[in-house]
């Protein structure tokens, strides 16, 4: 109990050894023949006002982590503590409270807005349903939200199709902020947007964080975007976090061979940044039959016998505080 109180003070969100498995069913009787371990022992903490970046390639489980946190997907095991509520064992009313304080921004702004609803209804519905605000007060609140995200108050009666991609993402952000959440989960918020619009939205998210003291869980595959937006970065590979550190340390001193390969694979505009490319052979193994030991050993340039037998522990391997890595071969002085 005591320990719980302490955590509540330090962290807004605590995730401990989270596992989310999906059963694979086969045959006439739909017997479970195996599991896809989408999230396999993930732990992290987010302090209030901080942005934690979760990076990884498609299928690494980053979105499943987000969905498990708000219980859109049932967790298999582990613990999620939001403020002082244990999310996984929360009852209906507790869960409601949690979900009110955690909102989501999605990748595809077109797909996450109902085309038959006006902007006013999209942004105002959370307020109407959960806070019972109606009439002119509702209209005022929506108008304020729209101007906060850089839209005009008179956009309120328009429909999503009348907006460009960047503007639609702004509508999604306004909806996410309507209930004044504490944590906002941004799931690839800019990857569907054009370059010139992407920077507008990234700036907006930063401004709103400052203004409202928001905490972000920022999910993305683009390391440069994550570097700009995040304070702490966790790199995921096949359902596990393989490296985690604050942004300066991670980008300045990446230790895991996967993190290094990811960074070297980014095409750079500035020729002076083009280092030697660590060519990564092969592809991400199938999630149905994950490799034994370290999941990265099949593609790792440093792999040796031990790597294919035992999963390395997630431990501190650098002088730097809070730089953790799961690799037998990583050696950070």
């Amino acid at each position: 109990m005591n320990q719980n109180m302490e955590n509540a003070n330090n962290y807004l969100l605590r995730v401990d050894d989270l596992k989310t498995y999906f059963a694979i069913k086969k045959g006439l009787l739909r017997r479970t023949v195996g599991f896809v371990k989408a999230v396999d022992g993930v732990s992290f903490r987010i302090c209030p006002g901080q942005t934690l970046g979760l990076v990884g390639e498609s299928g690494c489980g980053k979105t499943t982590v987000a969905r498990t946190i708000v219980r859109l997907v049932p967790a298999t095991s582990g613990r999620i503590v939001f403020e002082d509520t244990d999310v996984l064992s929360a009852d209906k009313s507790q869960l409601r409270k949690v979900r009110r304080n955690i909102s989501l921004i999605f990748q595809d702004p077109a797909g996450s807005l109902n085309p038959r609803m006006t902007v006013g209804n999209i942004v105002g519905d959370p307020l109407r349903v959960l806070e019972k605000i109606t009439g002119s007060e509702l209209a005022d609140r929506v108008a304020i939200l729209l101007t906060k995200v850089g839209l005009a108050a008179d956009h309120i009666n328009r429909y999503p199709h009348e907006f460009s991609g960047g503007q639609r993402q702004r509508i999604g952000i306004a909806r996410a902020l309507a209930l004044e959440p504490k944590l906002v989960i941004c799931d690839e918020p800019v990857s569907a947007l054009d370059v010139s619009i992407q920077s507008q939205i990234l700036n907006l998210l930063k401004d709103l964080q400052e203004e409202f003291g928001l905490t972000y869980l920022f999910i993305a595959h683009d390391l440069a975007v994550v570097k700009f937006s995040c304070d702490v970065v966790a790199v995921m590979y096949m359902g596990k976090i393989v490296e985690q550190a604050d942004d300066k340390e991670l980008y300045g001193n990446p230790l895991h061979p996967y993190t290094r390969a990811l960074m070297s694979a980014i095409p750079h505009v500035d020729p002076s940044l083009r280092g030697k490319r660590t060519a990564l052979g092969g592809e991400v193994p199938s999630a149905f039959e994950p490799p034994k030991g370290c999941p990265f050993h099949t593609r790792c340039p440093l792999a040796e016998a031990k790597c294919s037998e035992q999963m390395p522990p997630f431990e501190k391997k650098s002088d730097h505080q809070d730089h953790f890595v799961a690799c037998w071969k990583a050696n950070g002085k």
Partner: protein
Amino acid sequence: MDDNNTALAVENLATYFFLEEGVAKAVDGISFKVKKGRTFARVGESGCGKSVTALSIMRLIPDPPGRIVAGKIVFDGTDLLVLDEKQMRHVRGNKIAMIFQEPMTSLNPVYTVGSQIVEAVKLHQGKSDSKAWSDAVRMLERVGIADPARRAREYPHQMSGGMRQRVMIAMAVSCKPDVLIADEPTTALDVTIQAQILDLLDELQAQNNMSILLITHDLGVVAERGDDIAVMYASKIVEKAESGPFFAEPVHPYSQGLLKSLPQLNLSPKRLSTIAGTVPEPLHFPTGCKFHPRCSTGRNDKRCQTTEPQLRNVGHGRQVACWHAPGYETNEERAEYESKYGKRQ
């Protein structure tokens, strides 16, 4: 001499879509040359006409509502736009091949990947079934697919995104095309796979002296793989240059804005620089220079608001369409401007 180096020349191409709401000028008078053995990269944001240009070259514009209303596409001494469909079929997929962004939607889900490659080889090169099949297997091997004989008998859904893109490339290069049009070939892929696919394209280009028309929105990819660059904005090319000079010193305010707005790994700015506003839609293009409402210099300039600048040579092999670019304006134009609107600082 110049013609010997040119694999594909597009001259003044204009492709319009005739819609109920009006005429959408998706591509409006663009010219460029793809040189032999080189990669010509076209950058631009969504809706700027990059893909419509590619489809126009392949003559795959859906008609109606689209139509190529003007221009020439010269390949191997002939204008592709005057060929009939039968002649065009000989060029398409054979001499000029194309790979698309989404390999899943461009592969047929009900045929094995091997049989889809065989179809192209048989059609264009008249090979026998067994010869074509062994060709297909060899192509799969060349694009880096392990165990190609087994993979050739598999269906697209049994493969990962990266592998499907390799299959698309195998199919596209199976007839040894002179020009490969790659429309966002790696946009749907992860960065580590993207690097593999781009390396593969480089390799195939070197082996066959193939020209590549690379269409992408990713400036990093362009900087690393493009030899010549054209930046498109609102249906037109606004800047064209060789890759080195372009990235060292972009001239058009839009090119500058794009490069500056990218988050970089070596910098930690508090805020990113942005381009104000949004990309205009073809039905509602602004008057004058189409970029002027978003341009910090041109927004309040009367000439930028009313008169559209055309692409002009400004030296060092660079072409640009901007009244404010150094060396763009002639003396007469400057005098005319100043007599009309007063002295410029």
